[in-house]
């Protein structure tokens, strides 16, 4: 129950911070009168802050004392954060290099690496199979969209 309370409090803090950041940004908007482009953002910022405070107040009392099972949304397996971070890193790398390296090469590389990262612990990494799927999928998608649907995916180093 304690971790649950802490988690709910953290959510409240995040909510309140989001509201405050938005409020500060809104205060920098130019004003032209009471009802102008900043009016609605002020209302929204106020509501966000209010909801953040309400969430913080709510987290102080164990409201769901009778239902501890509800707390963690039934997470059975502990979250595997290293895999999440690796996945995020790969997606960021993929997006960053997409236009310079080009869609076909970058997609094949990304897919190959991502397959390996996500392979279940009990299964063996099938390097040849993964490489084949990655290259084929990348080329098929590239050809279908670039030549079939006229979508100008970046070609990069390869001129195909």
């Amino acid at each position: 129950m304690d971790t649950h309370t802490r988690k709910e409090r953290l959510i409240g803090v995040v909510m309140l911070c989001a509201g405050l950041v938005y409020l500060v940004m809104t205060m920098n908007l130019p004003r032209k009168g009471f009802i102008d482009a900043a009016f609605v953002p002020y209302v929204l910022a106020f509501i966000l802050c209010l909801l953040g405070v309400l969430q913080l107040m709510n987290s102080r009392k164990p409201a769901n004392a009778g239902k501890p099972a509800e707390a963690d949304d039934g997470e059975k397996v502990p979250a595997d954060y290293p895999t999440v971070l690796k996945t995020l890193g790969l997606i960021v790398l993929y997006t960053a290099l997409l236009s310079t390296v080009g869609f076909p090469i970058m997609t094949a590389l990304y897919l190959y690496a991502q397959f390996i990262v996500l392979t279940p612990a009990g299964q063996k990494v099938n390097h040849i199979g993964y490489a084949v799927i990655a290259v084929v999928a990348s080329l098929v998608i590239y050809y279908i969209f670039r030549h079939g649907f006229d979508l100008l995916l970046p070609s990069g180093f390869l001129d195909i």
Partner: protein
Amino acid sequence: MLELLQHGFSAVFSIQILILITLGVGVGIIFGAVPGLTAVMAIALSLPLTYSMGPAAGLSLLVALYIGATSGGLISAILLKIPGTPSSIATTFDGGPMMEKGEGVKALGAGIVFSFLGTIASIAALMFIAPWLAKVALRFGPHEYFAIAIFSLTLIATLSTGSMIKGLFSGVLGFVFATVGIAPVDAIRRFTFDIPNLNSGFEILTVLVGVFAISEIIKVAESVRAERKAQVGSVSMKDIKGFGFSLKEFFGQLPNSIRSAFIGIGIGILPGVGAGTSNIVSYIVAKKRSKHPEKFGTGVIDGVVASETANNAGIGGAMIPLLTLGIPGDAVTAILLGGFMIHGIQPGPMLFMSQGDLVYTIFAALILAALMMLVLEFYGLRIFIKLLAVPKHILLPIILVLCVVGAFGLSSRIFDIWTILVFGLVGYGFVKGGIPAAPFIIGFILGPMAETNLRRGLMLSDGNFMGFLSNPIAGGFILLAVASVAWHLFNALRHRKDGVVELLRS
């Protein structure tokens, strides 16, 4: 009306569109059936395919995906006892036990047939209610639209799963993200940080793909390495006549299915609550009304029928506010709205006047897709069962690449890929914090609608806020919005939770 519908059918009876509908239903069923893949993903990654198609072809593909994905959830609900989509949660209650009793085919057959009937009933409701509502809505001005937007927002925020504070927060945050870009009416640039790409704000589709597809992929990364291969039950299709259940059983289920269809359509019309809610409600109602409620949960056909009729009946229901007012009821209809807009179609009452033909083409495509679903899902069952076993660590990265292609294809900007990534993280944060994502999307879409109409309405009534309350329709909706929040607050303060709401949230 019949003449218009005839026009619609003649528009969809081309080889190209028939193939698209077949493909759409098939792909939709797969995405509905495989847990972790969603209808939103199916539509998101098929969108770039439609960029170069005509509106009739593009929209036919999108609605076919929608129908396929909504009904596909029953396959895994019955075979794996895992709902493929939230709309099939109640199907597992009796579908699972039926499978264990060896009545798997019967459960699947009944689920598919009544899914079909639910879809058709809701399309009929759509065809009767939508043109009428569009006529009424034609008279709506900024006051009414503002009030309806606020009402829809509060409804989705209070009824969505999780706490009301988090639901409201999610809706308001969606609104906040929608304020980025050039402001309505006086065209001031807001929150753009001098990045030119932000001047037009965030694209609806990038937000949707981020929050619902990318976040899902990140979430799966949490658990995929610990996963073992799912045991898919096998069903024998030998000696199966018709759809695996008798005519007597069919007629016995009719009252149940009619009631469930009404529940599904009614809940589907409400913004913010859709098939994910109606299947549970109709299951509860069927159990209460049944002569043998004690048998529910042990594998009776009634449970499957109630749940599956209701969730598919939500399709036509949810299309009513979408087509007539431009208000999406949930994430799937939100992405449909995005798809419509790509083809230059702005849903709203004017659509029925200016592009009546297209509306009836959509109706015809819906009917055809429903028929295709009936045939394809039952007779192609073996193929879909095989696909349940495709490993996720291969499937998800490819889906991500297709999402990237779709985002890039919107306007050939790498910027849009970064956007889906950012919103993917926002969506993942929501999952971690137990914050519902649907209000965020509805806030993002309805926010600008509310703000623009607030500003316009104030101009019309010379800056007087009373204009919103003295207008009977606008005042009524605002009153309802305030009442719904107040009622929930009152309940929360008294710590007495409403039974149904409690069940929906659990």
